[in-house]
């Protein structure tokens, strides 16, 4: 890996550092604020488990955030990562508790604005919904959990010192779980965009285990997050403890437990899988943010214990900050992309070719999107996003959502079905013989547009159609993603972002 790649990766490390600083409170905040665990101890434990979570379970996590846009050039990634990192630090300095996802969202929207890429409204609404759902659900859980604890555990005749020990152990276990899951779920946001640019060979550690190149990168990212927690995490904790809420050890434990339970119940695909396999009713999966869940849980437990323990003025400031953070981040990203592109003459966006084909027109027609005015663009290739966008908008004033669909369907995105790949990569445990045989029957067929590939591979038969059986549909969906990634030959780096 050349030195410039390391330079670009340093921005991800900075982003990791700032994310660590920002999320320290969500992990061990209540334990430290209630003086049950010393900051140093908390930071060391959190650091270790964030790193473990990043390296062991970090690979492969793709969040809804990545659906919003695809930063495809290294210098672009650098600009976005630095801007997001700076925005997070600004928010910490302003004593506003924001979620990293809010700031990253701003960064990606900034990139979309700068490059003229349309933003996927569905993904955007999903994230906006999570900003409301996370605190509300967590507050409800925090409230109920505290009432239960008050009427049960607090009535048991446990010695004060023993109770203190149990609470302390509970806070440490909760912190460990939160740290591990934070590392596992956020490392992709931090390092994901650099995975393809950093070509690290596998590393054998004393012939005990092997770290893949991706895991090594995630290890660096995890260390950066851990350093962030250790060096700057206390600032956010102070904001929570000194300004926002009075937190006692037991309310602290209840709050972090509520945060973890909510995140587990509403975001765990493994839990959903378990429930489906056992024919149990599933809980709808909702994308939740850890910071918002944390704040919600604090509010819920605070209201259950004593409403006066919450400083609603500070809460108001935090909520305003949730709106300000993405805007700030988007602005900083646009400015930094401008500078990097025009002053340092770096490529911040790689050209992505677009072409409206007849099948694209047919698809748009089927969705009721106006196509008459863009018929003259059929089979014309555009190498520049902005140019493509201008040409389309010149002809018809499409809404953002319609524009997003036109972009998504028109993107030239090569797929070639290859029997060798089928034989070597598709396991018979995951794929049935019928599925494999069908794919083999398409051998050597190539597609320049994703919609053509999907039409031929997925929609021309019943194999991968939804049946209404949740478990089966879920498996089909996962298999469709695997097949798509397997045969895609052009935008391999996209799958990691």
């Amino acid at each position, binding site marked *: 890996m050349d030195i410039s790649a390391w330079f670009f990766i340093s921005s991800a490390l900075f982003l990791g550092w700032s994310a660590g600083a920002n999320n320290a409170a969500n992990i061990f905040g209540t334990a430290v604020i209630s003086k049950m665990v010393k900051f140093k101890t908390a930071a060391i434990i959190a650091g270790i488990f964030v790193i473990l979570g990043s390296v062991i379970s970090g690979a492969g996590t793709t969040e809804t955030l990545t659906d919003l846009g695809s930063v495809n050039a290294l210098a672009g990634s650098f600009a976005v990562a630095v801007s997001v990192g700076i925005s997070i630090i600004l928010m910490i300095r302003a004593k506003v508790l924001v979620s990293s996802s809010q700031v990253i969202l701003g960064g990606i929207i900034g990139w979309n604005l700068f490059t003229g890429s349309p933003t996927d409204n569905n993904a955007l609404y999903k994230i906006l919904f999570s900003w409301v759902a996370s605190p509300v659900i967590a507050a409800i859980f925090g409230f109920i959990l505290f009432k239960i604890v008050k009427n049960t555990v607090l009535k048991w005749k446990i010695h*004060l010192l*023993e109770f*203190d020990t149990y609470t302390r152990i509970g806070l440490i276990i909760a912190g460990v779980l939160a740290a591990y899951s934070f590392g596992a779920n956020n490392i992709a946001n931090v390092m994901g965009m650099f995975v393809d640019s950093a070509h690290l060979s596998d590393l054998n550690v004393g012939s005990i285990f092997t770290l893949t190149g991706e895991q090594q990168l995630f290890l660096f990212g995890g260390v950066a997050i851990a350093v962030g927690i250790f060096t700057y995490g206390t600032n956010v904790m102070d904001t929570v403890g000194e300004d926002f809420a009075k937190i006692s050890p037991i309310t602290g434990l209840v709050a972090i437990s509520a945060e973890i339970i909510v995140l587990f119940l509403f975001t765990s695909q493994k839990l959903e899988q378990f429930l489906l396999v056992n024919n149990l009713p599933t809980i709808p999966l909702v994308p939740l943010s850890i910071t918002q869940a944390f704040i919600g849980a604090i509010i819920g437990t605070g209201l259950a214990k004593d409403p006066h323990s919450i400083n609603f003025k500070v809460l108001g400031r935090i909520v305003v900050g949730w709106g300000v953070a993405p805007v700030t981040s988007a602005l900083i990203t646009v400015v930094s992309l401008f500078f990097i592109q025009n002053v340092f003459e770096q490529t911040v966006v790689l050209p992505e070719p677009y072409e409206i084909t007849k099948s694209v027109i047919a698809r748009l027609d089927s969705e009721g999107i106006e196509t008459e005015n863009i018929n003259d663009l059929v089979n014309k290739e555009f190498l520049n996003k902005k140019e493509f966008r201008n040409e389309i908008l010149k002809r018809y004033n499409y809404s953002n959502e319609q524009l997003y669909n036109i972009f998504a369907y028109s993107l030239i995105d090569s797929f070639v079905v290859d029997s060798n790949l089928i034989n070597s990569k598709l396991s018979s445990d995951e794929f049935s013989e019928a599925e494999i045989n069908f794919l083999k029957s398409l051998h050597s067929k190539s597609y320049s547009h994703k919609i053509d590939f999907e039409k031929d591979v997925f929609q021309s038969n019943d194999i991968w159609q939804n049946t209404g059986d949740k478990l089966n549909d879920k498996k089909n969906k996962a298999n469709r993603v695997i097949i798509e990634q397997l045969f895609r030959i052009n935008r391999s780096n996209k799958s990691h972002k």
Partner: protein
Amino acid sequence: MFLKKTRKLETQIDEYLDLVIKGGLVFKLGIKCYLDNQMNDFESHLKDLRKIEENADDLRRNIEIKLYTRTLIPEARGDVLGLLESCDKALNITTDTLLEFSVEIPTILPELKSGFLELADSSISCLENTVSGIRSYFRNIDAVRDYVTKVQFYKKETNKIAEKIKRNIYRTDTDLSFKIHIRYFAFHIERIAEQSEDVCDRLSIAIIKRLE
């Protein structure tokens, strides 16, 4: 591992409270021996009481250091230390009072002896219930209220007995200096109950804070 250390500290707190109870009982025996003019036994009880007080002091310091260095019960630590310290003050008063008997050798008139015995009994009941209240603070918070009520009751009884003794002294045909001297001893024994009540006042506030 954590629980082992915690249980050891719990045992130390219990041992400390046991010493306070023992101190109260030894004090009562000491007063009885003094009033019965068994001076050797009295001196032996005084010696025991001083030893108990010394051990209780060491134990209390040890507990305090552990509570601080291990940052245990951060929310209740101040209250617990306050309770143990003010309880220790009550134990000190018992020792000081017995010591004053030994140093000043007051002459207790025969008609006042039963009053003094009653006074010591009542004061030490106050102390004993205070200790029970503190034990409950750690384990069974609902029971504390009962003990606080008992302490308040015994404290009032103690005040009444002390007042009666003082009235009786001042109605005897003795020198004023003698009267003042004896009144001073009634006052000192009464102080044990006063101090116990102070501990209970702290206890009542500590309970409110824990229930908050």
